[in-house]
């Protein structure tokens, strides 16, 4: 009963504090970014600029082959701004790239100067050979340069590469799983950092505010246990996390996520993060002293997001950082037919780990009440 009184009091106090509105406000900002700034899928089509300095007959063949690959099989006449001048260009849009055919070498040079991308001058030499001259920018890797040379080699050229790549078999590990769009793929990152990991900072702010006002001491001289006080704080943090998680998820994902699993995971991961925050605060007098330790923890927790966006970089040590499991779990939760077994195991793990850290934090707080 005393735990309930403490929790309802904390809930009432947090509704009057800035921190609560900062968290809710941040989740609304993230939602607006997702809705209006981030596209459903990022435009990964590369832009290619070519000047075909070729006899008309060869040029026609080139253009015909481009037209066949164009998505709507029509050429679009556009104007390009480059180097403070305007140039006419023909745009062919294929599945993989946007190809601009320029009319003059001067236009090609201007685009190379202003767009900072490689451009290609295609011409015929004295031996009637088609020569591709690439104007690179200097930042291209040796791998790309080698690839360009191989691509135009007669023996190991693009026909051979195409034959080889066409015969590569691609098998999906989860046949039923529909991949998330680029926009949806960002949601787990927002949920992990705005939901679970912000708990670490916010609970520290709440505790230091109370320490500063001597509230913890006053509470300690009552017949209620210190752990009631600490758990009621965590309860408030978890409620806030649930609210912010739903604010970000529902408008974007609708009914697709497994909300029951999401609720369970937000509670367990929030409990873990808040307990960790409590444990850290028990060593320090105020937030200024604690900031160094908090900063280190947050930086470590950010590392798995690099792996999340760059799957090829996935060393073993990154997988043991808790935010790795948080990111993966949120991803499974919002995916169609996501791996719920992973989410359940992660939830259980965070609950057990959180409980251990909470017990330690409670012990530390009892020892440092007069600080």
């Amino acid at each position: 009963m005393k735990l309930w009184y403490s929790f309802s009091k904390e809930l009432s106090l947090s509704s009057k504090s800035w921190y609560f509105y900062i968290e809710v406000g941040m989740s609304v900002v993230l939602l607006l970014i997702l809705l209006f700034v981030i596209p459903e899928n990022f435009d990964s089509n590369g832009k290619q600029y070519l000047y075909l300095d070729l006899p008309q007959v060869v040029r026609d063949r080139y253009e015909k082959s481009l037209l066949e690959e164009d998505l709507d099989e029509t050429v679009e006449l556009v104007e390009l701004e480059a180097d403070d001048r305007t140039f006419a260009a023909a745009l062919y849009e294929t599945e993989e790239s946007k190809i601009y055919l320029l009319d003059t070498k001067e236009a090609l040079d201007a685009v190379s100067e202003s767009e900072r991308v490689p451009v290609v001058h295609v011409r015929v030499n004295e031996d009637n050979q088609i020569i591709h001259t690439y104007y690179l920018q200097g930042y291209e890797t040796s791998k790309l340069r080698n690839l360009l040379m191989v691509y135009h080699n007669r023996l190991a050229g693009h026909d051979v590469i195409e034959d080889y790549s066409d015969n590569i078999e691609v098998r999906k590990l989860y046949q039923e799983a529909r991949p998330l769009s680029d926009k949806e793929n960002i949601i787990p990152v927002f949920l992990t950092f705005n939901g679970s990991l912000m708990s670490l900072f916010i609970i520290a702010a709440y505790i230091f505010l109370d320490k500063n006002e001597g509230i913890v001491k006053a509470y300690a001289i009552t017949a209620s246990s210190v752990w009631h006080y600490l758990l009621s704080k965590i309860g408030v943090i978890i409620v806030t996390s649930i609210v912010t998680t739903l604010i970000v998820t529902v408008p974007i994902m609708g009914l697709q996520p497994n909300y029951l699993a999401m609720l369970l995971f937000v509670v367990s991961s929030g409990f873990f993060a808040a307990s960790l925050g409590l444990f850290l605060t028990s060593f320090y007098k105020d937030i200024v002293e604690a900031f160094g330790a908090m900063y280190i923890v947050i930086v470590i927790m950010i590392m798995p997001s690099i792996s999340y966006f760059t799957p090829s970089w996935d060393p073993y040590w990154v997988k043991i950082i808790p935010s790795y499991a948080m990111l993966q779990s949120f991803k499974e939760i919002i995916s169609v037919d996501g791996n719920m077994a992973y989410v359940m195991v992660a939830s259980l793990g965070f609950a057990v780990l959180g409980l251990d850290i909470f017990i330690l934090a409670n012990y530390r707080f009892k020892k440092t009440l007069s600080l």
Partner: protein
Amino acid sequence: MDEGMNKMIKVSNLYHSYSNDDNYAVKDVSFEIEKGEIFGFLGPSGAGKSTTQNILVGLLQLQQGQVEVAGYDVKHIKNKMFNKIGMSFEQSNVYNKMSGLENLEFYRKLFDVETKDPMDLIKLVGLEGKENIKAGKYSKGMKHRLTFARSMINNPEMWFLDEPTTGLDPAIASEIKDIIKREKEKGVTIFLTTHNMYIADELCDRVAFIVDGTIRLIDSPKALKLKYGEKLVDVEYFKDGELIKDSFSTVIKEEKERLVEVISKYDIQTMHTKEATLEEIFIKVTGRGLV
């Protein structure tokens, strides 16, 4: 009846070091407090008053020594102990975002015993009419009174008061002292921590002088005055047109006779009896001031 039953606090050989070495903030402190007694713990800042008090109420962990409060061993504190004790802190520590009344309503729910009506406490400390204002908007004195009122919410048998009148205007301070006296009459035991010797003199049955972590003496203010004070009368009188200032002992026969002579022969301007104050005794005993 067991003698121990009348002791509300028993402290023996208490040591405490913040750095966990021989640099003790409190050294070999021993004392006992009778049920219904007001015990003053007096000393300058950094003497060890707060350390001792924090150990007694469980805010600091007991490292060495034996401490019993209201029948509970402080080494193994139980929540039940706090039903019997109350503490008024020197620094006000109330929820600023809650009103005075909400503060008291919340704290009363944290005890397992019958509690006082928060509104009665609000009236008792003169905050009537301000009970619904957020505590953050209270003046320093009002917050202090709210903290004081909160310490009474659970009808404590053992009441810890840390500088209870600091920062209060004389009228309010006088009311607070009256409340303390009334609670004592009801049988409440009071541990009063202060460096204000006048308050201690007025309220305490016994006082302990603590300096550099050790208790220098424990006795009643009256006994201390008898032991360390001198009974003097300061007199200012005109003799041959000149203002003379002189002091006369009221216990030495020759001086008493001389005082009578002065009174009968000269024009007296001022005359004051002068007992030694508790502060003077403290300085005499410890060789230290109280600041």
